[in-house]
């Protein structure tokens, strides 16, 4: 029983990472309809950013992680901007081309990672202050997992604030609701697209940094999460913040529990079957989508 309960925090931590990845996809896929297959590789870039902060810059692991979060956000955000301007912008309305091209970009990024860092996984030391844990009702809560959860909560709050209270956030919601109406309202829709892509990709970078705390860091790290992240967005209901949060937690827990009882690949199959069953029952996701805006 204890062993089962102890899967809960693991599931929540996985769910929080999925949430970070899915929040980014919510911008690029849920709202702009762009299937960016390189999103997983953006997570990988974020994870290697955490690696680089101490391996190259020799920063103290105690605060290197805190620096890695904004650095990864900025770096993958810029990568996203470049991808949008260089590739995706020219293929709006052509989802299959976009999918294949961004898949290719992902492979290129993986190869670059292999060339620069080598094919084997690298070690990203966690800060000492994340080493311990607390026991609550007999469940061990590792600091690292709590940190990931806090990071996810912080990002959700920041996004909600941005969308609902800030001027660029309002513009983003307007463009996502009705692009033509936004344009004739005076909103520079292209620039808003670029910002959307920057934020969505930047969140993938943050997810990548969080991943270094719960799993190995290697060139194909994004690979393992991209499908799950897309599933979260679809199950949560396109563009729905609340649905995305619940779907991420549910999928994280499902992953953690099924991995406990069976082996990993069978766990994936179980998750897929559960999701296919769910989508049969509720094709519109967990919540009905009334508009395409994040609310």
């Amino acid at each position: 029983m204890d062993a089962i309960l102890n899967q809960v925090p693991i599931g929540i931590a996985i769910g929080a990472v999925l949430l970070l990845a899915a929040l980014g996809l919510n911008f690029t896929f849920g709202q702009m309809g762009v299937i960016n297959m390189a999103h997983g590789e953006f997570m990988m870039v974020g994870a290697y950013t955490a690696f680089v902060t101490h391996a190259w810059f020799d920063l103290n692991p105690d605060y290197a992680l805190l620096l890695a979060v904004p650095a990864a956000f900025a770096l993958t955000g810029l990568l996203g901007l470049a991808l949008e301007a260089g590739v995706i912008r020219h293929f709006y309305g052509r989802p299959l081309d976009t999918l294949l091209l961004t898949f290719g970009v992902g492979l290129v990024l993986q190869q670059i990672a292999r060339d620069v860092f080598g094919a084997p996984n690298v070690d990203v030391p966690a800060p000492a202050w994340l080493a311990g844990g607390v026991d609550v009702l007999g469940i061990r809560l590792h600091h690292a997992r709590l940190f990931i959860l806090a990071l996810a909560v912080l990002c959700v709050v920041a996004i909600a604030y941005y969308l609902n209270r800030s001027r660029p956030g309002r513009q983003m919601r307007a463009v996502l609701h009705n692009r033509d109406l936004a344009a004739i309202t005076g909103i520079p829709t292209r620039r808003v697209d670029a910002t959307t892509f920057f934020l969505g990709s930047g969140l993938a970078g943050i997810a990548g940094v969080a991943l270094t705390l719960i799993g190995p860091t290697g060139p194909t790290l994004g690979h393992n999460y991209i499908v799950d992240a897309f599933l979260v967005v679809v199950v949560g209901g396109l563009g729905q913040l609340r649905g995305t949060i619940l779907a991420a937690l549910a999928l994280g827990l499902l992953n953690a529990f099924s991995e406990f009882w069976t082996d990993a690949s069978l766990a994936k199959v179980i998750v897929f079957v559960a999701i296919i069953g769910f989508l049969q029952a509720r094709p519109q996701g967990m919540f009905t989508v009334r508009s395409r805006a994040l609310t």
Partner: protein
Amino acid sequence: MLSVRGLDAGYGRAQVLFGVDLDVADDSVVCVMGRNGVGKSTLLNTVTGLITPMAGQVVFDGHDITRRPAHARVRAGIGYVPQGHESFAPLTVAENLNVAWEAAGRGPRTLIDDALELFPRLVPLLGRNAGVLSGGQAQQLAIARALVSNPRLLILDEPTEGIQPSIVAEIEEAIATLHDRGIAVLLVEQYLDVALRLAHTVTVLDAGAVVHSAAREELSEERVRALLAI
């Protein structure tokens, strides 16, 4: 103020407009009429930058704006109220006005107060989502949203279509008021009586081409009725 020359436009390969010429002088109200599907909305969409023309020119204030993006035309002083009184449904009425005011990025804050003074029905609705408004309220919001960008030319596409009669009169009055304040108006209107009350010039389109254009005084009402088949 606005001068359209030899405009060819359409959707993909389907051409809708054929060599359309249209002028809106400073301080005037021009009404474009025509049966359904003749290309009135296509003309307005091309003037405002939603559609890139196949040929021809759109000149505003002496500047060729044919290739400028739609949002830049708003900043240049063109306000557009498209057909169908659409709003940003997930945003509140206040946010709808704010987002437009911010995007135009130059006017004084009083523009929002002025717009609300023109449409006082919107005031108690400011905190509501725009998606819940009735047709008439939504049309007033759509016009107000165009006004907060401080336009010198206001373009409206069938502003009284599908609106409850009590509000139709308010909208007509608002257009007249705006013209009195010095805003030029380009209007698509189905009702001849409304058009004749507001317009200085009436232009009739058929099959994507101008078939009749005359100042109100010289207008042959029979001819227009015949062209509109009413």
